[in-house]
């Protein structure tokens, strides 16, 4: 017994000395249970993230996933946006009186100028309706539009996108056209419940079908990335001049026809190339912060199918079934 006695007491002494360390929480690093090798983990995550990149950029498969995650990120995003809101409101508050007066005068003048045209427009619209009724043409659907405010520029430095303060709850859908008081500024690309993301026309490769007012020629206008736009695929001898006004042609079914888009800045005709290089300046204040109008979808819904749909279905099937026999 005597021989066994000092053993436990020495162990307890040793344990007493150890306790501060254990209390402090210093545990030895794991020697064996360390999961997969770092290189294997690296390869796995690199492959996953590259697959995500490709499927998001090229195929847009991950929009649902993004929406799900954005629900999680939304509160943090809102909280982070509040300083920007505060700065914006403060700068509005401290805007100089003179600037406001000038702006007010300018707006009044513009309203007066517009009023006369509006009065005439009313009369023209009525006349147009009568004429259409005479022609039994379908009434052009008036677009339902939403006024929204640009909150801030999206942080992604590779694209030109801004965030609007209205989203799916205000009835905004992806693909809608956005205009300001001068002309088209872009298109809604993503919709969140309370916000939406507007891709500006100057974003690289953002396209819009247009028409040159002077010659009536149709073309496609692409954003070129540096705050400008470019008319592509026009022949080197096409009838375009610097200063030509470019408006939407309405061929896409998204933008109403005749909205101002850009002005041709200059025309570089290079004989070595098949197409002319035609940079254009945006007409609207594309890169300014202001209120914008989100236009409703232009095309009207197709008419309701007639009551006798099941019969039509049967006959369709019958025809299909009969076709091979014949």
């Amino acid at each position, binding site marked *: 017994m005597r021989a066994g006695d000092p053993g436990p007491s020495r162990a307890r002494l040793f344990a007493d000395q150890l306790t501060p360390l254990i209390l402090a929480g210093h545990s030895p690093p794991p020697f064996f249970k360390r999961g997969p090798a770092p290189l294997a983990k690296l390869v796995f995550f690199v492959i996953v993230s590259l697959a995500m990149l490709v499927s998001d950029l090229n195929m847009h498969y991950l929009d649902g996933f993004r929406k799900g995650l954005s629900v999680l990120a939304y509160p943090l995003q809102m909280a982070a946006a509040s300083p920007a809101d505060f700065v914006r409101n403060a700068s509005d508050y401290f805007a100089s009186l003179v600037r406001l007066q000038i702006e007010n005068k300018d707006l009044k003048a513009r309203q007066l100028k517009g009023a006369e045209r509006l009065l005439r427009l009313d009369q023209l619209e009525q006349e147009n309706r009568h004429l259409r009724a005479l022609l039994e043409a379908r009434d052009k659907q008036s677009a339902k539009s939403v006024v929204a405010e640009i909150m801030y*520029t999206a942080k992604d430095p590779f694209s030109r996108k801004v965030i609007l303060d209205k989203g799916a709850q205000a009835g905004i859908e992806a693909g809608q056209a956005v205009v300001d008081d001068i002309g088209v500024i872009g298109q809604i690309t993503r919709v969140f419940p309370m916000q939406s993301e507007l891709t500006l026309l100057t974003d690289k490769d953002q396209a819009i079908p247009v028409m040159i007012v002077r010659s009536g020629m149709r073309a496609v206008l692409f954003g070129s990335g540096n705050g400008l736009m470019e008319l592509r695929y026009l022949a080197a001898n096409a009838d375009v001049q610097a200063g030509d006004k470019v408006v939407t042609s309405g061929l896409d079914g998204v933008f109403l026809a005749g909205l101002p888009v850009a002005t041709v800045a200059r025309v570089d005709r290079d004989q070595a190339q098949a197409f002319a290089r035609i940079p254009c300046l945006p007409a609207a204040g594309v890169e300014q912060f202001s209120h914008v109008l989100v236009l409703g979808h232009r095309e009207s819904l197709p008419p309701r199918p007639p009551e006798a749909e099941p019969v039509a279905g049967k006959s369709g099937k019958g025809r299909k079934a009969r076709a091979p026999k014949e």
Partner: protein
Amino acid sequence: MQPTHSSRRILLPVRMWFVYTTLFIALFLNYVPTGHLPAVPDVVALVLAFWCVREPVKIGIGAGFVFGLLTDIGVGAALGQHAFAYVLLAYAANELSRRVLWFTPVEQALHVLPLLFMSQVVMVAVRLMAGAEFPGWWMFFGSFVGALLWIPLHYVLLLPQFQPMERDENRPI
């Protein structure tokens, strides 16, 4: 023993909730809409690199991937862009950890600068390959500002570990 703040000082063990809290605060700072302001540092990359260097066993590539995805969502980038860059960053920081910890904070910042720069180069390369416009050289100033921020960050993030649990006049850790 006087507090020296040197890398070899014995510190209290890190608490994982503190690591994740700081990462979320960094995420919040990344979400602040600074628009296209030049030289805005990527705070998540910085904090992630810090913890990957300090605690290579406890935090690494997985956290980089998750916080990369969250950053992608918040700033409207392509999904996977930041995740890809942060995964590479976390791996490199984990591997370099044993070397970097020998140095003083200023020298550590010099080690972290190429890591941050690399993560930005990776993102630019990926987006340019996908056909985006080049955002301009000013963007790369962000990693230099980030490396400068490493020095104050070193003290701020280690602050909870400097506190002794019980003060002992004879044996202050």
